[in-house]
């Protein structure tokens, strides 16, 4: 397939880039014709050329990039005609190219009003690097400047004039105000006042009738017959689409210019597309780069067999014009019957803000910010996502005034010198400073800048919280999305996966995400799927979306061997089963150790031995202990009333009941539990995600504790409840946690971030304040009913067993790089470097 692209501007370039990304090099032949001598450059930041940026720095990709990717690039060679019958284009230098598809990205030219004298020397347009070079030369002899056009481009041009050293510059606008398309009268007035304070002269309501002078411009004349002296003029009064070629070959164009396209950006010839500023979509020319890029993406996707539509584009913008913030979003001008407007003005500082609110006061429809646009992103998100406004909508531009400050917990309560990443010795202050002072706004940026989270990775969720919190404290709006592939929080994704009934990672990515996924979203989504349906995690293509431990149903250890932990509910085990564990350990040469959770861990197993080991364990009545999963691990117990002279209830039997109920339950993070038979608390239940302590009258239930890097005691949720009620509360608590927590967030951290804390949680779980208790119980029951030992399923399934080999082409061989060293009559993994 051969695709010819006419135009090597920003949008034409982006099209090449998108097509390569989707199709790969070499599958489609790309030929590009550009009129200018340079490869595509960043026209949006053209004025930075005057501020010292070189033409090379503005270049989007060097000529070598096109060659490396197999793209033929003809520069300085505009296409002269298109032959639609034979599907060929003919260029200025005489090249004739056949095309299967033709993409017109011809952009726009400056609109020059027909004023007598526009041809004189010293009159410029402001469009290309060549224009800038000519302006720079001429400006050396100029003292009095003028710009026709008080819109976005006109003010950019005025900035360029100031940068060129022409401080005496006038802006001449035909309309009654500056930036008439983006802002209202009052906003325009504020902008004007600020620009005048910077030394610009501004004339609105002014119609230029003549440009005076002999060869060179010397003055301008206006409709009221007044004149001003000018020796350099830039015309920046708007754009007109470059549709000459399209007209010439009979493509449909609009009355006021622009190549007519449909939602697929196809012209009336199905082999020809038009994108960017030359395209007229539903009567609209999009004069910004972002919608142009979106159009490029749509055409690239469709040419690669996709089906994507262009359905219009949000024209919200925020820019800095000559040092003054100007932003408009949503619908900046509404009529009285569509809603009401709230405006706020500070004439001293030169700040104007307007928000348009729906008639019921619930939603933000649009607005304008001049002089201070810090709230732009937050307001834009509020507007686009239809976030419900606070009872006093003015709070969104003025901030909450008076009332209680929000109570902080979690990362906010940590002192500045708290060690967050112990691998790299990074403190809370280091991270907050990287966010505030070095502009790191993502976990990845923090990793690159401070190295925090690059060691074991255990601190990454806390780093994320700190980044978000610091950004919030700096007034930036934060949406807690999973990663670059999913624009949803885990909680949102959980609900969406359920609603759409999705059961594989690939299906979730296709329906709700983009790109190819990564090591962040894969395990998070796999966990959501497991928490929703509790199906075998290695089937439906989900094996490769699991984190390594889940993929091999064992914990990877130093050297690449695995450890095996059979479930021993409540820590109770028969002598016969103990003997089997010992026999298996001897047979497969494994190191054995008692774990902190009253189980036995067998280390040093080769990946290919895992199914054999489990076959023997399962035959002896064991099942998986899920020590490898973000899942329920163990329910520890003290011996309780069956033997202990202080015991109030049979804590072992209750621990076994709890462990067998929740075994295999997957959650955002691991879950630990314990049951103590009396207040002496030998099982340490108050350090668990949920812990139960016997009382004279029943059980006390504690939740959201953990050991680990930041130990936290569990909090009392309910007192003196019977065994069934306790399980009912745990069902609700766990399911509420599973549905709402962020990825890799333990229950303690989840509670710390919860507004209202334990009182809110108690209301939800015990008092059913949200009316979801029955639903939570039903959802948990489904998971309990679907439980199967996943190791038994692997052992019984030859297809699954096949994946447990080190070499795909030598299944009988073990990894020769595995090394052990002897230690205290057993062995250990060789130390890594």
């Amino acid at each position, binding site marked *: 397939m051969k695709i010819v692209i006419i135009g090597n501007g920003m949008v034409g370039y982006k099209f090449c880039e998108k097509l390569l*990304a989707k199709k*790969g090099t070499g599958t489609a032949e790309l030929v590009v014709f550009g009129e200018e001598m340079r490869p595509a450059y960043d026209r949006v930041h053209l004025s930075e050329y005057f501020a010292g940026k070189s033409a090379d720095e503005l270049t989007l990709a060097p000529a070598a990039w096109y060659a490396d990717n197999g793209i033929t690039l003809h520069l300085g060679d505009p296409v002269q005609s298109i032959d639609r019958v034979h599907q060929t284009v003919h260029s200025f230098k005489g090249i004739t190219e056949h095309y299967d598809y033709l993409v017109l990205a011809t952009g726009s030219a400056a609109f020059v009003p027909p004023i007598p004298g526009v041809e004189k020397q010293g009159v410029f347009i402001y469009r290309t690097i060549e224009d800038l070079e000519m302006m720079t030369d001429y400006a050396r002899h100029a003292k009095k400047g003028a710009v026709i056009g008080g819109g976005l481009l006109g003010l950019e041009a005025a900035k360029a004039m100031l940068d060129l050293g022409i401080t005496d510059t006038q802006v001449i606008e035909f309309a009654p105000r500056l930036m008439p398309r983006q802002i209202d009268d009052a906003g325009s007035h504020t902008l004007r006042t600020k620009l005048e304070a910077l030394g610009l002269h501004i004339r609105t309501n002014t119609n230029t009738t003549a440009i005076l002078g002999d060869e060179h411009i010397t003055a301008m004349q206006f409709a009221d017959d007044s004149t001003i002296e000018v020796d350099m003029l830039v015309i920046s009064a708007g754009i007109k689409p470059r549709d000459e070629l399209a007209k010439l070959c009979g493509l449909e164009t609009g009355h006021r210019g622009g190549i007519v396209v449909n939602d697929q950006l196809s012209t009336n010839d199905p082999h020809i597309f038009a994108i960017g500023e030359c395209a007229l979509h539903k009567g609209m020319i999009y004069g910004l780069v972002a919608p142009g890029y979106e159009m490029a993406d749509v055409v690239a996707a469709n040419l690669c067999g996709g089906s994507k539509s262009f359905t219009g584009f949000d024209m919200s913008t925020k820019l800095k014009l000559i040092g003054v913030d100007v932003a408009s979003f949503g619908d900046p001008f509404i009529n009285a019957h569509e809603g009401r407007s709230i405006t706020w003005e500070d004439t001293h500082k030169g700040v104007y803000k307007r928000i348009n609110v729906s008639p019921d006061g619930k939603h933000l429809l649009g607005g304008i910010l001049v002089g201070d646009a810090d709230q732009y992103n937050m307001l834009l998100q509020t507007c686009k996502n239809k976030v419900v406004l606070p009872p006093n909508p003015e709070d969104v531009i003025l901030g909450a005034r008076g009332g209680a400050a929000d109570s902080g917990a979690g990362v906010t309560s940590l002192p500045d010198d708290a060690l967050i990443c112990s691998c790299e010795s990074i403190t809370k202050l280091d991270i907050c400073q990287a966010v505030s002072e070095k502009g790191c706004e993502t976990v*990845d940026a923090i*990793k*690159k800048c401070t*190295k925090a989270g*690059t*060691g*074991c*990775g255990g601190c990454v969720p806390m780093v994320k919280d700190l980044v978000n919190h610091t950004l919030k404290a700096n007034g930036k709006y934060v949406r807690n999305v999973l990663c*670059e*592939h999913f624009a949803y929080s885990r909680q949102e994704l959980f609900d969406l996966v359920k609603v759409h009934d999705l059961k594989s990672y*690939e299906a979730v*990515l296709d329906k709700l995400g983009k*790109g*190819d*996924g*990564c*090591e962040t*979203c*894969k*395990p998070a989504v796999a966990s959501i799927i497991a928490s929703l349906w509790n199906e075998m995690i290695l089937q439906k*293509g989900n*094996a*490769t*979306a699991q*984190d*390594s*431990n889940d*993929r*091999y149903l064992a914990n*990877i250890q*130093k*050297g*690449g061997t695995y450890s095996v932990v059979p479930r021993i509910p409540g820590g109770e085990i028969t002598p016969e089963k103990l003997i089997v564990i010992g026999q298996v350990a001897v047979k497969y040469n494994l190191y054995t150790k008692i774990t902190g959770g009253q189980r036995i861990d067998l280390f040093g197993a080769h990946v290919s031995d895992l199914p054999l080991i489990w076959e023997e364990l399962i035959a002896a009545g064991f099942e998986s202990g899920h020590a490898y999963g973000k899942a329920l691990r163990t329910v520890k117990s003290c011996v309780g009333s069956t033997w202990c002279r202080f015991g109030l209830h049979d804590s072992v039997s209750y621990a076994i009941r709890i462990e067998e109920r929740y075994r295999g339950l997957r959650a955002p993070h691991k879950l630990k539990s314990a049951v103590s038979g009396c207040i002496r608390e030998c099982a340490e239940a108050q350090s668990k995600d949920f812990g139960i302590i016997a009382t004279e009258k029943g059980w006390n239930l504690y939740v959201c504790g953990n050991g680990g890097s930041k130990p936290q005691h569990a909090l009392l949720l309910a007192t003196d409840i019977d065994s069934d009620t306790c399980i009912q509360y745990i069902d609700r608590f766990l399911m509420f946690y599973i549905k709402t927590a962020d990825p890799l967030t333990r229950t303690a951290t989840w509670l710390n971030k919860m507004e209202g804390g334990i009182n809110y949680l108690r209301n939800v779980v015990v008092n059913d304040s949200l009316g979801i208790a029955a639903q939570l119980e039903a959802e948990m029951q489904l998971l309990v009913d679907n439980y199967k030992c996943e190791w038994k399923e692997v052992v019984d399934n030859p297809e699954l067993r096949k*994946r447990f080999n*080190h*070499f*795909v*082409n*030598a299944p009988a*061989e073990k*990894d020769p*790089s595995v090394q052990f060293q002897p230690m205290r009559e057993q062995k250990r993994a060789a130390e*890594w*470097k």
Partner: protein
Amino acid sequence: MLTLEQTMTWFTACRVEDVPENGGVCVKYKDEQIALFHFTRRGAWYATQNECPHRQQMALSRGMIGSQDEEPKVACPFHKKTFSLQSGKCLSGDDYVIKTYPVKVEDGFVYIGMEE
């Protein structure tokens, strides 16, 4: 291209169906271990050294694959260091570079190209 063909030996790694979709396997070639990935989502195959240079662990074939921006990558299961499957460069801020190998598929068999 001619010189490339002369010095490249293609050896048979496995059948297409031996490699899980969107995942990897480890291939033995003489004394070397090579991680082979079937990036089904992109319709692409990639091969790299199996050893993660961070702690010299033979583990990359067991890592999760995915993309960062448009760059295909693999994350080591040990400490989640990520590497480009195209250039071999480390994408998580370290200076490591891993070896990559060309892959071709013919008649249901996967071949990896080794420079001799």
